[in-house]
C-alpha cells in the first residue's frame, strides 16, 4: 500500500519535474521525487541508503542546484521559435509506448505476491548451503573462510553497507573505488570548462577564430 502511494508519487513528481518549464519548480519537484524514492528505500529495509538519500541528494545537492539556478537567473525558455515542435508529440507518444512496453514486460515477469519484502523474509533459506558445491561458484568467493558480516540483520545498515563497500572480498569495493576516479574526472572537468580565461589567452583566441579552419 505504502509502496503504491510513494511509488506513484515518485512517478508523478518525476514527470512533472520534466514537464515544468520553470527550472526552479522543476528542481523542487526533483526534491520531492528524491523524498519519495527515499521512502521506497525504507520499505526495502535500506535505512542507511534512505537517510543518505535525504541528506545528500535532497539536502546538499539539490540546494546547490537551486543556488546555481537562482544565481544564473534562468527564466522560462522561449519556445515560439522552435521549428521542431512536431517532434514533441511524437516523442511523448514513443515514450508512452516504451513505458507501456516495459510495464508489460515487468508485470509479466515479476512473480505474484509481495515483490520486494518477501525476499527479505525468505532470506535465511537463500543462504542455506547446497548439497554439492558448484565449481563455478567457488571461484566467485575469493576466500571461503573470510569474514562475512552481511546477514539479514546487518543488510541495509551502516555496518552492512560498510562491509560491502570496503571489504576486498566483496564485489562492490572495486566499483566504489573506481567511482572516485569518475569524481576526479568531474572535478577536472569543472575546472577545465569553467575556469576563467587567462589574460594571455584571449588575444590568441580572437586571432584563432578569425583564422579558423580551411
Amino acid at each position: 500500500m505504502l509502496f503504491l502511494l510513494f511509488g506513484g508519487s515518485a512517478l508523478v513528481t518525476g514527470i512533472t519535474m520534466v514537464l515544468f518549464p520553470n527550472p526552479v519548480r522543476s528542481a523542487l519537484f526533483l526534491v520531492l521525487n528524491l523524498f519519495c524514492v527515499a521512502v521506497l528505500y525504507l520499505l526495502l529495509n535500506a535505512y542507511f541508503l534512505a537517510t543518505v538519500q535525504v541528506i545528500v541528494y535532497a539536502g546538499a545537492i539539490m540546494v546547490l542546484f537551486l543556488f546555481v539556478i537562482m544565481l544564473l537567473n534562468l527564466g522560462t525558455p522561449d519556445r515560439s521559435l522552435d521549428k521542431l515542435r512536431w517532434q514533441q508529440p511524437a516523442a511523448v507518444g514513443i515514450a508512452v509506448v516504451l513505458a507501456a512496453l516495459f510495464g508489460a514486460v515487468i508485470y509479466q515477469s515479476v512473480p505474484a505476491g509481495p515483490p520486494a519484502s518477501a525476499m527479505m523474509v525468505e532470506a535465511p533459506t537463500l543462504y542455506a548451503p547446497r548439497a554439492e558445491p558448484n565449481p563455478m561458484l567457488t571461484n566467485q568467493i575469493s576466500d571461503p573462510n573470510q569474514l562475512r558480516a552481511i546477514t539479514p540483520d546487518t543488510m541495509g545498515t551502516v555496518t552492512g553497507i560498510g562491509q560491502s563497500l570496503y571489504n576486498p572480498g566483496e564485489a562492490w569495493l572495486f566499483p566504489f573505488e573506481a567511482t572516485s576516479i569518475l569524481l576526479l574526472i568531474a572535478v577536472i572537468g569543472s575546472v577545465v570548462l569553467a575556469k576563467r580565461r587567462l589574460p594571455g589567452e584571449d588575444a590568441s583566441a580572437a586571432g584563432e577564430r578569425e583564422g579558423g579552419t580551411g
Partner: protein
Amino acid sequence: MNQSVLTDLQALICPLVVIVLGMIVLLLDLGTGDGPARRRLIYFVSLGGLVAAALLAVANTTIPNAGVGVTPLTHFGGGMVADRFGGLFCIVLCIIAGLAITMSDRYLEEKSLNSGEYYALILFSTSGAMLMALAYDLVNIFVGLEILSVALYILSGFARRERRSEESAVKYFLLGSFASGFLLYGMALIYGAVGIALKNTGLLQPTGTSFTNLGVIARTIQESAETGGAPITASPLFIAGVALLIVGLAFKAAIVPFHSYAPDVYEGAPTPVTAFMSAAAKVGAFAALIRVFGILLPADNASIAQAAVPFHAVLWGLAAATIVVGNVLAIRQTNIKRMLAYSSIAHAGYILVGVLASSVPGASQNAKDAVIYYLFTYTFMNLGAFAMVIWLGRDGGEYTSIADYAGLAKQQPLAAAAMAVFMLSLAGIPPAAGFLAKLYVFTSAVQAGLTGLAVLALVVSVIGVYYYLNIIVAMYFRDPVNDFSSVRAGGARAAALLSAAATLLFGFIPAGVFSPTIQRDQPTAQPILGAAEKSPLPPAVAVVSPQP
C-alpha cells in the same frame, strides 16, 4: 586477505598504471615550472607510462579467456577479470591513447590549451575503456563506461574558446547521458530477472556477489535451463534488459540509429580528441559487447546459444543499417572530419558483423579474433588519418575540406603516401591491413552462416571505396590549391608515419604480428565446450639442422 588484494591489483595492473599515470601527470602539471619544458616532460611521461602499461598488459594475454566452460580467474569479489581478451583490448587502448597523445603536442601548443589536464583526461578515459574490457560485472562495465564517457565529454569541449567544441561537448553529454540511462535501466532489468530466477530455482546466492555479476548470471542461465521450467533467457525481463544493454553500448560504438551524435561531435571536438574517441569509445563498447554476449549468451553452449537467437535479428538489422547509412552518408561529406566520422560509423558496422558472428556456435573464436584484429587495424588507420589532418594543419588551423588536400602529393609526397595508405586500408584494398581485417570478419560471418549479411557488407563497402579514393584522387591528380610547404611536424607526423607503418605491417604479415597473441593458443582458449571449428594447422615441417 592482503595477499588477495595484492593479487587483484596485480591482475588489473594495466588500467591501474594508466590511472596512476593520469594522476602523476596532473601533479606534474601543478608542480613543475611553466613553459615548453614542462609540456615536454608531461608529454614524454605520459607516453612512457603508456608503453609500460602496454607491456604489463602483455602478461595478461597468456591467461585463457573467460567464458562458459573456462573457469575465469576473477578479482575483486568476482567483479573483474584479467584474461587474454581483456589484455589484448588493454594493449589496443594503450596504443590508441599513445597515438592520440603523440599527435597532440603541437596542436595543444598552438591552441594554447593546457596539456596537463588534457593528457590526464585522455589517460583516465583510456582506463575507463580498459575497465570495461576487464569488467566481469555489469556494474563495473557501467562505471568503466562512465569514466570513459565523462572524460570524453570534457575532452570534446576542451577547446572551450571554440563554439563548435563547446557545442559538441554539450551534445555528446546530453545524448550520452540519455544512452547511459538506457544502459543502466537495462542492467536493472537484468538484475531483476536474475534475482527472480534465482529465487524460483532456489539457488543460493553467495554473499558479496551481485545479481549483475556475469559469472552469477552465466550460472543462473545454465542452471535455470537445466532445472527445467522457463529458462531465464526466455524471460521477457531479461531479454528487454539485454536489449537496453545493447542500446547503451551501441551508442558508444556509434551504431545506427544511435550514431547521430557522432558526426557533429567528431567535427566539433579538437581533432586529436576526435581521433581518440573514434577509437577508444568503440573499443571499450565492443569489448563490453563481446564480453556480455560471450557470457550472457554463450555461443559455445548449444543449449544456451538459443538465447542469442532473439538478438540475431536485432544485431543483424543494426549492423546492416550501420554499414549502409555510414557508407551512404560518407559519400556526401565535404568535410574530412565528418567523412571520417561516417566512415567510422561504417566500420563500427563491420565490427558488429564480427560481434554477431561471435554469438554463433562454431564461428565464435574466429569471429572474436577477427574483431580484435579489426580493432587493431582500425586503430592504426583511423587514428593515422586523423593524425594526417593535424599534421597538415598549421598555425592553429586545419584543412578540413577534402578539396583542400588537392595536389598534396606534389608538395608533400611522404604525407600523401601515408594518407593514401590510410585511405586504401580504410577502403579495404589489399596491401593494407584493412583488407585483411574485412576479410577475417566477413569470413567469420560466412562461417557463422551470415552469408547474406557478409554479402551486403561487401557490396556496400564498395561504396566506401568511392569516398576514400576521392581523397587519393584529390591528392594525386588535382592541382594544388593550398600551400603545404610549412606544415605542423612533430608528434602528429610521428603518429601518422607510425600508424602507416603499422597499417602496412599488419597488412603484409598479419599472422606474423599477431601470432604470439591471437593465433597460437586458439585450441586451448575454449577447451571444454570449444565448438570452434578451427581446422588444424598442418604440422610444422621438421626443421633440419646441419650436423657438422
